[in-house]
């Protein structure tokens, strides 16, 4: 789960945030003002400052908020001037919007506020509906308004072109003032309360929010027009009220409650997608008629309230049909305010100690939770002079590990050179203050000689404390007062220890002391007075960090916690399963350090573990290696596992029959384990069996559906026939046991164990199951490659929609919910438990997808549209095809692994558009639908969506926060050592992104670099020599120029015309080959690519029925093909391999068919194993792993003995 923030304000008005992955309150240093209240959502935080104005803090993202302004330049032809801006009087403006109705001169475009900036100047858009135009970008037509074309014809009388310019929201991670402007001038009175929410009401426009505010006079204002592209919103609208409101709360959905001055509550009704501000209020009585309510907080389907006596109340019976609920339940605890966050999680500030509490155990079934638990983490402002040693080294440790590099401040240098006697005293004082009990202000008169203790632990911290005091040395004088009276006149600046001296003026309150890093400390130490001891620094640095962290324990007693005034969890994504490190600071710190690096976890590299591995190795050398000729005490025997299953029988009529199933395992020659699976069945009263050798099984595929626990066993022969052995186990558990056992057995027989190699070929089925195959060199051999139906695939835990890899072992995957995942180097997970799974590197993975059903209606003259269709019509509730009935009640999640997480809701995001109720109209079923009703439309349909969620485990870790729709990694050549591995991606909004900091050790990288485009993109691929190709959503292709190691993002896009009348869908770039797939399933090869002209010249058609293509680092071509004929059946989604691809013949000759159907994705971009050039039989045999079958003749009819299958 991505890291998100909990926001809070303390009683001095200082703003803090606490990260779900963090262990301390971070002071929001930018808040130069004190704040009264905050309301946070995931992308931003709104607040009311002490000046009663509203401020907005939009969290910075790697993808900036940018808005495209456009204007059209219109021209008409006349015989004198040719095309000129002299238009007819009846014509449109010379500069207009797209409709031509509005005058839009370029200089008339103004930035909406000072929070925006222009990205560049106006330029001409030369892309017209996916096709490049001539220079100048003109499109021609006979007259305005008409259809425009690229070609200038004899009758083209008018032309126009599109100018575009981007503006960018710049006020991210800072508090930007929102003007208190209503529709008719400034608002009459200042604000008193604020609440933000409503993002679940509608997904369009994206990032839409509702902001409700209460003024001092008790009026309620609604701010409209807030969405992704206008984060500040448009203007305030007053909402009429039955009384005076003191406080308001808005949930993520359509729930809005407010508290009246008199203590009753009011509930907003009529909030819908079209009317987010609702229509009317309903009054609800206070829980206790004697004691009025003072505070209310709402979530998706919960309402919490606090009465004047600080009692907490939970509202019963809230749901989308009944926003008022049915009754109050008193809860334990006395609170001053409550905040409801995502997933209806609850935070509160207690009356007694003013600490922030988290409600534990809130689940969707138990919304009221179980108990309050205090959030006990230190605040980064808690630093006192006497404890600066330990604390600062803690911070430095944090910075050191997180790899955050910040420039050393010049200001500290200034204060360093300052000759300040006070400072000297302070410095000395601090240097002897290693035991925290020595209080600086208590013994300033003891200028002891600077003899640091040289025990290794204290050494680094000692040096750090030295630095510390130099840094904030000048501030030393003010510290004692600050400590005594925090929050008085001086409290405007950040917390006590942060106070900057006048000499450091101009600094934006940046806490320099928190960015001390150890490396710097060490260099400092080497040149400093203590240079003689520099050698010991390396060895002691780590231990000192650890010591300091543990030493922190005592520093934050509960009494030290300042008082909190307000908390907002609206942006804090936790649920009852989230492991929060907020409740015990010590363990939290250690765990956080373990979690910091993905690939090198300290547990893995711990000395004790290494020692055990080494000693076990030595032991086997000592005790076994020299005595291998000794007899074994226990003779190996056969081990049989038996069970009963159902089998989808091979002959017609196909049906499930009961069979006995057995796996016999034995040690084969060369010590490899091997086995045979037997399937005993009855045919015509006769006992028969069917068997398959474990070493001939190529893949085991779980085929979960909602009725049976099915899996399929393929051999090369069965793959050819497109007819696997299909078996169903009685329970899911049994199926998983068998799958895990058979899988281990298959891997053993082929001598495969541990994680997949870097060259592995990854593929994904349409169920999201992940498979991986170890490529043989002979796979790409020419002219006699190993048939790809002999490839052995094993499953890897997790659930993905897409996976991409490269030959150095960086693997990324994308889920159905567009979450990005990086491969951790483990294996197993999912149903592979125990031995078949690695211990480390397995994490929980979730995925969410939508299930769609259609509501169909037919028009009749009497009643209009009704759910009564013609007898010949489709089901009134159906799937997309209309052939299957799918009602809301009967539709189940795709498999038992999925559980519903939302209710059915109308889906407005259907291609073709919908009306306000989500309907699409058509003349009859089944035709093309449009989003508006015409006279000729007799039927209509609308799509309902319901989200379901799957939770599994696998060797994957999330790469937050940007959801992606495509990703590509440079397929590094065989020997090339690339420091930074180029990785490009497309966000699910279509932004092109370039990942920085991807290396072997940090496969997840560090941050995204946004690469500007004029339109959303959908597919991207980077190939040899850093050629980047991409496909835009309108189906056009683009080549990115000048991408190199020095310039990882390149400089500009070159528009490449698509094949005639085709919209491209996907691209893959190998060493030199560029292949694309279009929306009609055609595979295209780019002709004429040369180093000097990498864009190439034309597209050549290679094949049809192609769904996806993956071109490898050796230009090998693999696809997912549809409509592949097998001897038993036709399959869709089959892995295919292009044969005959050679340097001089990159297009290859024919297809070889591999595993399928039901496959959705393949990537061969890790496989850089060169095939043997000259095929000497002896050579290739030697190259194969001894256990593979490739060298043996193809087993004929291995699955068809027992003579029954012929029938």
């Amino acid at each position, binding site marked *: 789960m991505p890291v998100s923030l909990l926001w809070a304000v303390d009683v001095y008005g200082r703003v803090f945030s606490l990260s779900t992955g963090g262990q301390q309150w971070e002071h929001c240093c930018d808040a130069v003002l004190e704040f009264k209240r905050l309301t946070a959502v995931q992308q931003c935080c709104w607040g009311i400052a002490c000046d009663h104005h509203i401020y907005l803090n939009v969290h910075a993202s790697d993808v900036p908020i940018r808005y495209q302004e456009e204007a059209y330049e219109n021209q008409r032809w006349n015989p004198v001037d040719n095309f000129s801006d002299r238009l007819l009087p009846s014509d449109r403006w010379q500069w207009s919007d797209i409709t031509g109705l509005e005058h839009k001169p370029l200089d008339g475009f103004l930035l909406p506020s000072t929070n925006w900036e222009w990205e560049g100047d106006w330029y001409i858009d030369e892309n017209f509906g996916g096709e490049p135009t001539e220079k100048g970008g003109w499109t021609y037509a006979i007259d305005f308004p008409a259809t425009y074309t690229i070609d200038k014809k004899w009758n083209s009388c008018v032309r126009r072109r599109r100018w575009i310019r981007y503006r960018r929201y710049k006020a991210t991670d800072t508090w930007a003032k929102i003007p208190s402007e209503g529709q008719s001038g400034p608002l009459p009175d200042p604000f008193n309360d604020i609440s933000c929410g409503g993002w679940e009401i509608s997904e369009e426009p994206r990032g839409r929010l509702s902001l409700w505010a209460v003024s001092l006079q008790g009026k309620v204002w609604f701010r409209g027009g807030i969405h992704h592209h206008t984060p500040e919103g448009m203007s305030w609208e007053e909402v009429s009220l039955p009384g005076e409101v003191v406080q308001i709360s808005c949930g993520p959905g359509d729930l809005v409650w407010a508290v009246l001055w008199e203590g009753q509550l009011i509930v907003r009704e009529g909030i819908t997608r079209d009317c987010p501000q609702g229509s009317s209020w309903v009054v609800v009585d206070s829980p206790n008629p004697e004691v009025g309510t003072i505070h209310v907080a709402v979530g998706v389907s919960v309402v919490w309230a606090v009465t004047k006596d600080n009692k907490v109340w939970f509202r019963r019976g809230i749901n989308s049909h009944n926003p008022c609920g049915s009754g109050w339940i008193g809860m334990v605890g006395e609170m001053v305010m409550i905040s409801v966050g995502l997933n209806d999680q609850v935070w509160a500030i207690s009356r007694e100690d003013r600490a922030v509490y988290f409600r534990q155990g809130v689940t969707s079934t138990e919304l009221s939770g179980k108990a309050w638990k205090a959030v006990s983490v230190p605040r980064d402002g808690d630093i006192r002079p006497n404890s600066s040693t330990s604390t600062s080294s803690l911070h430095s440790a944090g910075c050191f590990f997180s790899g955050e590099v910040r420039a050393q401040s010049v200001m500290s240098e200034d204060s360093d050179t300052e000759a300040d006697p006070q400072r000297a005293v302070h410095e000395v004082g601090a240097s002897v203050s290693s035991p925290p009990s020595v209080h600086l202000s208590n013994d300033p008169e003891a200028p002891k000689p600077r003899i640091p203790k040289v025990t290794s632990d204290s050494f680094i911290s000692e040096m750090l404390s030295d630095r510390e005091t130099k840094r904030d040395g000048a501030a030393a004088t003010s510290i004692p007062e600050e400590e005594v009276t925090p929050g008085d006149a001086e409290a405007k600046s950040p917390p006590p220890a942060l106070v900057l001296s006048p000499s450091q003026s101009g600094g934006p309150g940046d806490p320099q002391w928190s960015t001390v890093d150890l490396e710097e400390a060490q260099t400092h130490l080497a040149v400093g007075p203590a240079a003689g001891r520099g050698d010991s620094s390396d060895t002691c640095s780590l231990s000192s960090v650890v010591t300091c962290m543990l030493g922190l324990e005592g520093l934050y007693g509960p009494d030290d916690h300042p008082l909190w005034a307000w908390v907002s969890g609206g942006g804090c994504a936790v649920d009852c399963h989230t492991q929060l490190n907020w409740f*015990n600071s*010590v*363990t939290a710190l250690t765990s956080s350090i373990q979690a910091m690096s993905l690939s090198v976890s300290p547990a*893995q590299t*711990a*000395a*004790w*573990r290494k*020692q*055990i*591995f080494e*000693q*076990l190795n*030595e*032991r*086997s050398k*000592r*005790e*076994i290696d*020299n*005595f291998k000729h*000794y*007899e*074994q*005490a*226990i003779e*190996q*025997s056969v*081990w049989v596992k038996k069970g009963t299953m159902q089998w989808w029988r091979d002959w017609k009529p196909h049906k499930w029959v009961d069979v006995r199933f057995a796996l016999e395992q034995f040690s084969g020659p060369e010590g490899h384990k091997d086995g045979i699976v037997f399937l005993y069945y009855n045919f015509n009263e006769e006992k028969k069996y069917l068997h398959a050798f474990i070493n001939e099984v190529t893949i085991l595929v779980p085929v979960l559906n909602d009725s049976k626990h099915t899996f399929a066993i393929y051999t090369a022969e069965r793959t050819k026939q497109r007819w696997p052995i299909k078996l169903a186990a009685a329970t899911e558990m049994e199926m998983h046991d068998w799958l895990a*056992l058979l899988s*281990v057995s298959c891997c053993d027989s082929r001598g495969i164990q*541990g994680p997949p190699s870097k060259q592995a070929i990854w593929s994904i089925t349409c169920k999201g199951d992940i498979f991986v195959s170890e490529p043989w060199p002979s796979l790409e051999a020419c002219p006699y490659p190993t048939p790809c139906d002999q490839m052995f695939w094993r499953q890897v835990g997790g659930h993905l929609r897409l996976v991409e890899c490269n030959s150095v072992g960086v693997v990324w995957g994308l889920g159905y919910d567009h979450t990005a995942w990086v491969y951790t180097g483990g294996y197993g997970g999912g149903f592979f*438990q*125990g*031995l078949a*799974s*690695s*211990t*480390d590197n397995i994490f929980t993975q979730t995925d969410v997808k939508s299930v769609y059903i259609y509501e169909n209606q037919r028009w009749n003259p009497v009643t209009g549209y009704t759910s009564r269709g013609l007898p010949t019509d489709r089901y009134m509730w159906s799937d997309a095809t209309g052939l299957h009935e799918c009602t809301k009640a009967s539709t189940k999640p795709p498999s038992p692994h999925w559980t519903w997480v939302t209710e059915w809701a109308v889906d407005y995001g259907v291609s073709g558009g919908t009306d306000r109720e989500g309907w699409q109209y058509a003349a009859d079923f089944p035709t093309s639908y449009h989003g508006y009703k015409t006279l000729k439309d007799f039927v209509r349909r609308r799509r309902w969506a319901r989200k379901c969620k799957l939770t599994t485990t696998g060797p994957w870790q999330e790469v937050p926060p940007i959801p992606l729709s495509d990703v590509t990694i440079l397929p590094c050549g065989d020997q090339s050592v690339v420091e930074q591995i180029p990785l490009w991606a497309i966000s699910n909004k279509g932004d092109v992104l370039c990942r920085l900091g991807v290396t072997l050790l940090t496969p997840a990288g560090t941050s995204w670099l946004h690469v500007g485009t004029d339109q959303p993109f959908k597919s991207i691929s980077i190939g040899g020599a850093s050629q980047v190709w991409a496909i835009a959503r309108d189906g056009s292709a683009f080549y990115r120029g000048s991408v190199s190691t020095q310039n990882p993002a390149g400089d500009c896009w070159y528009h490449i015309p698509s094949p005639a009348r085709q919209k491209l869908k996907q691209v893959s770039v190998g060493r030199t080959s560029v292949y694309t797939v279009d929306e009609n399933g055609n595979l295209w090869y780019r002709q004429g690519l040369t180093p000097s002209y990498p864009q190439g010249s034309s597209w050549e058609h290679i094949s049809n029925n192609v769904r996806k293509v993956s071109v490898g680092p050796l230009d090998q071509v693999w696809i997912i093909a549809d409509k592949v004929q097998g001897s038993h059946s036709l399959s869709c989604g089959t892995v295919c391999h292009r044969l005959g691809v050679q340097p001089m013949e990159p297009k290859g000759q024919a297809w070889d068919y591999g595993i399928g159907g039901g496959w959705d994705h393949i990537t061969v971009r890790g496989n850089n194993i060169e095939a043997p050039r000259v095929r000497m039989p002896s050579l290739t045999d030697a190259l194969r792993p001894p256990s593979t079958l490739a060298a043996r003749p193809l087993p004929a009819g291995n699955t068809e003995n027992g003579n029954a299958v012929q029938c």
Partner: protein
Amino acid sequence: MADDKDVLRDVWFGRIPTCFTLYQDEVTEREAEPFYLLLPRVSYLTLVTDKVKKHFLKVMKAEDVEEIWFEYEGTPLKWHYPIGLLFDLHASNTSLPWSITVHFKNFPERDLLHCPCNSVIEAHFMSSIKEADALKHKSQVINDMQKKDHKQLWMGLQNDKFDQFWAINRKLMEYPTEEGGFRYIPFRIYLTMSDRPFIQKLFRPISPDGHTHTLGDLLKEVYPVAIASDDEAKRYQVVIHGIEPLLETPLQWLSEHLSHPDNFLHISVIPAPSD
């Protein structure tokens, strides 16, 4: 980087090369050749010495044969200790193969238990597993298992079937993640020079304040003598499966990975070699 799973394999497939010789006073018809065998470290002597018995019986008269027992340098070897433990305890730091003397007479009733058949070993093995699970999970896991699962554990050990054994045993090694480990660690500490057979106490993998207990913590608590203080030379070796894990090794990890099939962590504390 090797995976933790490899440790399980290494532990399971640990072998000790052994040379069996017949006791000189045994009456034989002709001279008895020594018998060489690779003994599984995790198994039991009487379970894996059928071949040895057969070999020596060939040269003996039936009437001279009583119950077989084994002895190393004068010490009768307890069959109910795992072989690896016997070796570590009595014969580590000696040259290989391990030389064991075979007796068919004068069964040392005071030192050894009788082992008339394999079902005695099975009973002993299963009772160890049950005891270990009582410590780890209040017996909940073992009691939830079916009879055939118990059998599979035993058959796995008897037939040296790693997968068969671990398919079941992994359930015994699970614990609730929020607790961070077993309730108590099933361990036994053996001392060569003590009259006590072994030390066994209740010891948790996690301290009350949430710290992970290490092997060092255990020894400090249970047998502090084993840990050399900084200034003195190492007097004892702490050996598990023929290796000396570092004292900072987490105990929970050891219990999961270096336990014997009987689910106990058998720790030998032996005098450090003087050289």
